[in-house]
C-alpha cells in the first residue's frame, strides 16, 4: 500500500512540475504573431503549392498581411483558391480584391509519337531535366515535350499527366489551378499559363519549335514552321505575332474567331473547348490545309451520325 502511495505521489509531483515548467516556457518563449496572419492562412487552400511565389500558404498569408499594411493586394494572387479565396482574404484585411483572370496551364507541344518519332532510346534517369542534359533527347526536336513527367511530379492537384500513348503531358483543365508549378519544372519552357477564356475557350499555337521551316518540318509533322499565314488572317485583331520561326497568339487580343486554326497548314494551332464545327466548315475553302481537313471532316461526320 505504502509503495503504491509513494509511486502515485512521485508521479503526480513529476507531472505537476512538468506542467509548471511547460506553462512557464509557453509564456516566456511565446512568439508574437499578427493574428491576421493566422486568420488569412485559415481561408487559404493549404495546398502549399508555391504558385504565389511564397514558401507555402503561411508565407503567402504573411505577405498578404504585409501588403495590406501597405494598402493594396494588387500583386498577390492565390491561384488555386481563385477569386473566392482572394475576396475572403481581402475581407479579413478590410480591402478590395483585385480581379485576376483565372489561368490554366497549356502544354505547347503536339509532337505525338506518330508526328515526331522517337528515333533513339534514352536509358538514364527518367526525369525531363536530366534527359534534357543529353541534348536533343529521344526525338529530333530540341524544343518539344520530353514526356518524362517532371510537371506531373510537381503538380499537387493531379491536373497534368503524361499520356503514355502520345508521350506528351496533358492538362486536365477541370483540376488545373494555374499555380504555375509545372511551368517552372519544365526544362524546355513548353508550358504556358493562359487565361481560361470564356467557357474555357482558347486558341493556342501548340508548338514551341524555333527551328527554320524546313528543319521543323523534318523534325515533327505537327510543328509550327513560322510561315506567317496565321498572322495574315489575323490582320484585323493583330493577336498573332511571329517570334523566331514560331507564332504566338496573344490571349488578350484573340477574339476566338478560329480563322488561324483553319489557315495553319501544319495543324499546329488548336482551339480548346469549342463545340464541334458546323457542317459548313466542310465546304469552306481551307488553303493547303491537308491536315486539319480530314480532322474536321471526321468530327462533322461523327456529329452527323450522332444527329441521325
Amino acid at each position: 500500500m505504502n509503495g503504491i502511495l509513494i509511486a502515485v505521489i512521485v508521479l503526480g509531483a513529476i507531472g505537476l512540475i512538468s506542467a509548471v515548467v511547460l506553462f512557464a516556457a509557453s509564456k516566456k518563449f511565446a512568439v508574437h504573431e499578427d493574428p491576421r496572419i493566422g486568420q488569412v492562412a485559415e481561408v487559404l487552400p493549404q495546398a502549399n503549392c508555391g504558385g504565389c511565389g511564397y514558401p507555402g500558404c503561411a508565407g503567402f498569408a504573411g505577405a498578404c498581411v504585409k501588403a495590406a499594411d501597405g494598402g493594396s493586394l494588387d500583386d498577390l494572387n492565390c491561384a488555386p483558391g481563385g477569386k473566392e479565396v482572394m475576396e475572403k482574404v481581402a475581407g479579413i484585411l478590410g480591402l478590395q480584391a483585385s480581379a485576376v483572370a483565372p489561368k490554366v496551364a497549356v502544354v505547347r507541344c503536339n509532337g505525338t509519337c506518330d508526328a515526331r518519332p522517337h528515333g533513339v532510346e534514352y536509358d538514364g534517369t527518367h526525369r525531363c531535366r536530366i534527359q534534357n542534359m543529353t541534348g536533343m533527347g529521344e526525338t529530333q526536336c530540341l524544343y518539344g515535350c520530353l514526356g518524362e513527367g517532371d510537371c506531373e511530379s510537381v503538380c499537387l492537384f493531379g491536373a497534368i499527366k503524361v499520356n503514355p500513348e502520345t508521350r506528351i503531358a496533358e492538362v486536365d483543365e477541370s483540376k488545373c489551378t494555374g499555380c504555375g508549378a509545372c511551368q517552372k519544372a519544365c526544362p524546355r519552357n513548353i508550358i504556358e499559363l493562359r487565361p481560361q477564356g470564356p467557357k474555357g475557350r482558347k486558341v493556342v499555337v501548340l508548338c514551341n519549335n524555333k527551328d527554320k521551316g524546313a528543319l521543323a518540318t523534318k523534325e515533327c509533322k505537327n510543328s509550327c514552321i513560322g510561315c506567317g499565314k496565321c498572322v495574315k488572317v489575323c490582320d484585323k485583331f493583330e493577336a498573332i505575332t511571329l517570334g523566331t520561326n514560331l507564332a504566338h497568339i496573344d490571349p488578350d487580343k484573340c477574339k476566338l474567331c478560329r480563322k488561324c486554326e483553319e489557315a495553319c497548314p501544319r495543324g499546329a494551332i488548336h482551339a480548346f473547348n469549342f463545340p464541334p464545327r458546323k457542317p459548313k466548315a466542310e465546304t469552306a475553302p481551307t488553303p493547303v490545309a491537308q491536315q486539319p481537313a480530314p480532322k474536321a471532316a471526321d468530327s462533322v461526320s461523327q456529329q452527323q451520325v450522332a444527329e441521325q
Partner: protein
Amino acid sequence: MSKLIVSLSPHVHSGDSVQKNMYGVCIALVPALIASLWFFGIGAAIVLATSVISCVFFEWAIAKFLLRLPNCTVCDGSAVLTGLLLGFNLPSNLPVWIIIIGALVAIGIGKMTYGGLGCNPFNPALVGRVFLLISFPVQMTSWPVPGQLTAMGADVVTAATPLALLASGHLDELPEATDLLFGNVGGSLGEVSALCLLLGCAFMIWRKIITWHIPVSIIATVAVLSGILYAADPTTYVSPLVQVLSGGLILGACFMATDYVSSPMTHKGQLIYGVCIGFLTVLIRLWGAYPEGMSFAILIMNAFTPLINTYCKPKRFGEVAKKGGKK
C-alpha cells in the same frame, strides 16, 4: 540494328552489385558455419536452416502482401544474410518456434517496417537477437557444451560461457585463450571459433566488401581498454586476449558492425563508430547487467550513425591547400 541508346556518362560499370556483396559476406561466413556444425552438430544446422528460411520467407511475404513492392528484393541475398547472422547469434539448442519469432522480429520490425533494404537504421539480425535475449533470457543463455556431436534437445549439458563466468566472478574457471581461438568453448553458434571468423573477415577485406576500419577499431579499442584494466588489477579483470576472443566480439566486429546500411559512410566516421562500440562493449561487459555487451553496443551506435554521417565529412580535395594558402 535497333534504336541507338543515349544516356549521360559514365557508360561503363564496375560490375559490382548488391547480390555480389551480400553473397560475398555469406561466403565469408562459411568457415564459421563449418566450425559451428563441427562443434554443435545437427542442432546448429537446424538453427541456421530455420533462421535463414524463415527470414527469406518473411521478407518475401511482407514485400509481396503488406508493402506490395513491385520488385522482389528477396533475391538480393540480404535476407539470407540476416538469417545467417541471426542464426549465428543463437544457441544451438534453441527451440524452432523461438527462432521463427526472432526471424519475424528481425525482418519484420528490424527491416521491413522502415521500408526494406537500405532503409533500416538498425542491424536487423541484432534487433532479432536482442528481442529474443530480452524475451527468452533462459533459453537464450543456456548454451550446450561443444563437442557433443550427437547431442539433441533436453539431453544437452549446458554450461556457462566465458563471459558469464566473468560476470559472476569465477575467473579461475575461464578457458584458455587457445580454446577460445579454435572454438572449444560454450556459446552461440557464431561465437565459438574466433579463427574462422577472422578468416572470413580477411576474405571480405580482400574482396573489398568491407574495409579494415570498423573491425580493427573495435577490436583494438576493446584490447586497449581491457589491457589497461588488466594491468591495473589482474585479479578482478581478465586478460585482453580473453576479452577479445570470447563471446560475440569478433562476430560482431567483423560481420554485424560492418553491416553497410547501419554503419557510417566515411572512414573517419567508421573509426569513431568502431571506437565507441569497443568502449561501450567493455563498459557493458564489466559493469552492465548482461554478460555480453556487443549487440547492445552495436545497436546503440547504429542509432548514432546518421549523426556521425552528418558531422564526419570526408576530407575534400584541396581543403588543406586552402588553409595553407591563408597562412
